[in-house]
């Protein structure tokens, strides 16, 4: 049994990296923009659906992934417009888009499930080729983090970070915070959809339910990543690497508890509970464990 567990680890690593990429999208909205964006549950499936439909219709897999990326960006734009232009609270805007996408994803696929077996199609990764899949994913992760590191260092990227950090100050400094939020949501959901396209190829199918609870896995990866990396480095690139590592650790644990005989039906509940506790810890710390400080200021 131990060897079975060991043998499952590379697969868990690959899957963890795919979800880690997805979690990087969550990181952009949740950590940088300070928005809890629930669009991701739908947009990850949009990515998988678009990729699967195009590839099964003979389109080149790279083009299919590019279209999936663009489709994901559009889903982010919908949430962004609902939130900024229509004034709907971000969390509700995400839920509305998620519901829109349920129908859209079904329409894209024409049914609830599309098979995408590697033996019939030219894919860039698949579960049976674990090692090459991991290499492909490593390349993806490297390029993505390099691009994001560059972007969040630019004037435009800096204005996104400022918007998430202090929205009043950002407006006072001439930043169009609505545009910044939409742009952040667009980038985030583009990445999430791309991870959906990778996931569909890896597992060999696209399914209408593949995104259910994605936000929780994403948050779990972000939280684990923070716990692992923040003490080592505050650097943006390191934090993003941390999120990927967070995804991988999440799947290692997932794989392990399954091997230990845990009912797989309970996993989503357990994930949600773990995330809830981790989200509560900083709040509890603040509420119960900070001593009242004397008001001292010095210039």
């Amino acid at each position, binding site marked *: 049994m131990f060897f079975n567990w060991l043998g499952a680890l590379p697969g868990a690593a690959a899957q963890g990296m795919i979800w880690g990429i997805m979690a990087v999208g969550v990181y952009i909205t949740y950590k940088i923009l300070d928005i809890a964006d629930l669009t991701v549950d739908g947009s990850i499936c949009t990515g998988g659906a678009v990729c699967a439909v195009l590839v099964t219709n003979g389109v080149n897999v790279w083009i299919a992934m590019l279209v999936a990326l663009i489709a994901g960006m559009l889903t982010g734009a919908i949430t962004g417009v609902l939130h900024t232009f229509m004034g709907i609270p971000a969390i509700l805007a995400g839920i509305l888009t998620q519901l829109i996408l349920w129908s859209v994803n079904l329409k894209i696929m024409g049914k609830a499930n599309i098979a995408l077996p590697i033996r019939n199609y030219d894919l860039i990764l698949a579960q049976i080729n674990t090692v090459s899949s991991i290499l492909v994913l490593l390349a993806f992760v490297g390029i993505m983090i390099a691009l994001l590191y560059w972007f969040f260092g630019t004037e435009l990227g800096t204005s996104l*970070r400022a918007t998430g950090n202090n929205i009043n100050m950002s407006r006072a400094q001439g930043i169009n915070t609505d545009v910044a939020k939409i742009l952040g949501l667009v980038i985030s959901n583009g990445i999430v959809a791309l991870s959906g396209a990778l996931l569909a190829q890896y597992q060999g199918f696209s399914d209408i339910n593949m995104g259910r609870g994605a936000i929780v896995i994403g948050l779990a990866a972000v939280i684990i990543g923070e716990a692992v990396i923040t003490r080592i480095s505050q650097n943006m690139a390191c934090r993003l690497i941390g999120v990927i590592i967070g995804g991988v650790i999440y799947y290692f644990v997932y794989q392990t508890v399954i091997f230990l005989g845990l009912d797989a039906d309970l996993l989503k509940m357990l994930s949600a509970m773990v995330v809830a506790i981790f989200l509560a810890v900083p709040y509890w710390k603040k509420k119960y464990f900070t001593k009242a400080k004397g008001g001292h200021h010095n210039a």
Partner: protein
Amino acid sequence: MLEIKNVTKTFNPGTINEKVALKDLNLTLNDGDFVTVIGGNGAGKSTMLNAISGVWKPDCGSIIIDGQDITAMPEYKRAKFIGRVFQDPMMGTAADMEIQENLALAKRRGKKRGLRWGITGAEKEEYKKLLAQLDLGLETRLSNKVGLLSGGQRQAVTLLMASLNNPRILLLDEHTAALDPKTAEKVLAISDKIIRENHLTTLMITHNMKDAIKHGNRLVMMHEGHIIIDVKGEEKQKLKVEDLLDMFTKASGSEFASDRAMLS
């Protein structure tokens, strides 16, 4: 250069919480004016500054900068004319970003933000010099997060940010009120210096009447949403706190009431 013409603003109209915050407000600033603004609670001081910076649109009236009507211009767009420092030291800076990143954000106020790198090497040198002038030891801490600074240090950095790119007008909204007296004095001195050196047209709200008399070349007092006293030049230099209180009683027909105003 700044004209506020007949501006009126009512919050929560038609409800039990209806509040006429600005009532037919008129004020014209000349280039280089440094105006201190005083008034009791709810007199409309901060509301006036928010009207200028475009936090919301006034019900009627217009706001004009350099002949350009900006009444309908969104807040982020008119930011290119305006530098702001708020009462709350947390408000004016992004806590999780570095000191130099905050300054670089302010440096690009009113400019297009593209895909160039967010901060240049030359800028870092410039910021180092500017920070050194504050005399708070911040020039060696450029890459520190602003969240690590004290309230006074944050206000000083915010002042610096507000003054970058020579805004047409600087708005200071009780920016020393949250600081202890000694720090407040230091930040005020820094404000004076920055305003003088950059010849900034300034509106400064203060609850300290002495400060209002001591600083600037002009003093206005607000009451019930408009300006009731406007003194400048020599007359202002000679003012005493008692004079101000007398003037207030005459102009408003009531006693000056503010739980925070410092009369001495």
